[in-house]
């Protein structure tokens, strides 16, 4: 990575750490056997997978028999939701989710809705939190699944997962959580939190892209999503991505080892950035919950300006960041998450997401604060909305 680039988009993806890559390398060129083979040469690969399974299990307080490797967070979400829908369709067809899920969950639910399932999208408050009473009263006899994300990828809001798990357990409904943004950043104990299924992704925590895992609590029925060979105890077919799995295991182990100190350090940067920007840039607001928030996530809206233009200007100054804005996703609608927390369209279009990583420093944050002010002023000068606003003020 170009040394002069300040990378503030760790929620989009992270680099694969050197220590992680080093663990993976032997499995490409040397120990490359197919883990299903019986000769000795391949057996070490089966062991390597078992080690990774153990590392992943430990990170979330699961048993290693409850971990199944996938090709990423998206597959884990698709599998969990479609799998439960299919496995429990005799019991009911109702699924509860929220309006701020990642598309991997939302579009999967929409797909199911087209196929005879009934989906309840719980609203969130202006901080991005669901209402637990609403959840409770949304549950009916036909409810087979609650799928609510652990922490939101755009605005960083962390749900009260333990409380959700408790409600799910009381009512006997299976609870899946998309924890792609949470694993390695927040303490997770699937058993204490009564989580039945949990999705993870490698490339959000310094592991390789194209890797992920689904935790499936013992006893939960889950139809296979990928049919074929007998890998992953017959539940997920396909020759195992051995280097990828090894990398995921190592990355998740490292992330949880560093979690406590890093989350404190990054939360300090976060709160400093929030304070400075709200103070120095008028007509700006923080999106997401102030306290129940990912330690590495900041999300602002700047009135009267549009997010993509802001991002490109930051990029021209060497800062890589992201926006909930339309243009970033190839779609023209503003972020469904920002709309869900009640932002009007024109403000939802003007958001900026900064997500820190282990290498982020205070100097980088100070540089951002400095250039951000100039860029916002510049874009407001160009903006007819700002003109109209000033007009009204007079």
């Amino acid at each position, binding site marked *: 990575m170009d040394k002069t680039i300040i990378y503030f988009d760790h929620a989009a993806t992270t680099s694969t750490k050197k220590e992680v890559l080093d663990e993976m390398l032997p499995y490409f060129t040397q120990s490359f056997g197919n883990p299903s083979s019986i000769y000795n040469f391949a057996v070490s690969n089966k062991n390597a997978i078992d080690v990774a399974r153990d590392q992943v299990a430990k990170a979330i307080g699961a048993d290693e028999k409850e971990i199944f490797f996938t090709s990423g967070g998206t597959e884990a979400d698709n599998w969990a939701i479609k799998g439960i829908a299919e496995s429990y369709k005799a019991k009911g067809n109702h699924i509860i989710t929220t309006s701020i899920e990642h598309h991997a969950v939302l579009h999967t639910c929409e797909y199911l809705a087209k196929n005879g399932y009934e989906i309840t999208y719980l609203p969130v408050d202006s901080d991005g939190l669901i209402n637990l009473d609403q959840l409770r009263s949304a549950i009916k006899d036909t409810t087979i699944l609650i799928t609510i994300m652990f922490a939101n990828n755009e605005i960083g809001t962390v749900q009260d997962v333990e409380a959700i798990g408790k409600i799910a357990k009381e009512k006997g409904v299976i609870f899946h959580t998309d924890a792609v943004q949470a694993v390695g950043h927040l303490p997770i104990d699937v058993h204490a939190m009564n989580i039945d299924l949990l999705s993870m992704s490698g490339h959000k925590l310094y592991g390789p892209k194209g890797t992920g895992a689904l935790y499936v609590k013992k006893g939960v029925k889950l139809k296979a999503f990928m049919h074929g060979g007998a890998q992953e105890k017959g539940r997920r077919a396909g020759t195992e991505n051995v280097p990828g799995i090894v990398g995921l295991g190592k990355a998740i182990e490292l992330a949880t080892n560093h979690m406590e100190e890093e989350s404190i350090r990054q939360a300090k940067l976060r709160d400093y950035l929030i304070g400075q920007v709200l103070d120095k840039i008028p007509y700006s607001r923080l999106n997401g919950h102030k306290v129940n928030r990912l330690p590495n996530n900041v999300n602002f809206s700047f009135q009267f300006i*549009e997010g993509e233009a802001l991002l490109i200007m930051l990029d*021209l100054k060497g800062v890589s960041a992201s926006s909930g804005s339309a243009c970033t996703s190839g*779609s023209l609608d503003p972020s469904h998450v920002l709309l869900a927390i009640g932002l009007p*369209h*024109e403000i939802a279009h003007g958001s900026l997401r900064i997500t820190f990583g282990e290498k982020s420093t205070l100097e980088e944050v100070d540089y951002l604060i400095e250039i951000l002010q100039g860029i916002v002023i510049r874009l407001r000068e*160009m903006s*007819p*909305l*700002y003109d109209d606003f000033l007009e009204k003020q007079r």
Partner: protein
Amino acid sequence: MYTEKVMDHFSNPRNMGEIENADGVGTVGNAKCGDIMRIYLKIEKGIVEDVKFKTFGCGAAIATSSMATELVKGKTVQEALHVTNKAVMEALDGLPKVKVHCSLLAEEALQAALWDYAKKNGIVIEGLKEPKEEDHDHELDDEEE
């Protein structure tokens, strides 16, 4: 993502600003779609003497506004009418598919400003149609055809 020309017009937009007592002003787009363009025209003896813009929108929106104003400056009203989105796109060496609507918006903003000029001055510009109220749906191609 963007061509050098687009990046140039985005980083150094030409004719950004407003014209006091403009002869024609046109605003199109809406905040819902994330783009609003406003074009100001100063017209003397049927010639676009000056033109300015203000734009709320993405990089492509700003660049197309800038380029559109460049293209009409000094042109006759009749010529300005033929500064289409195609012409703007070509002058920018192209736009990503998802951004083509920005060039359309630039064309519409220009025509709205010309319409405003025509209305204020009680003249009829041949071939110019009344700007329709926006709310054009941005439909994405269904790639799953």
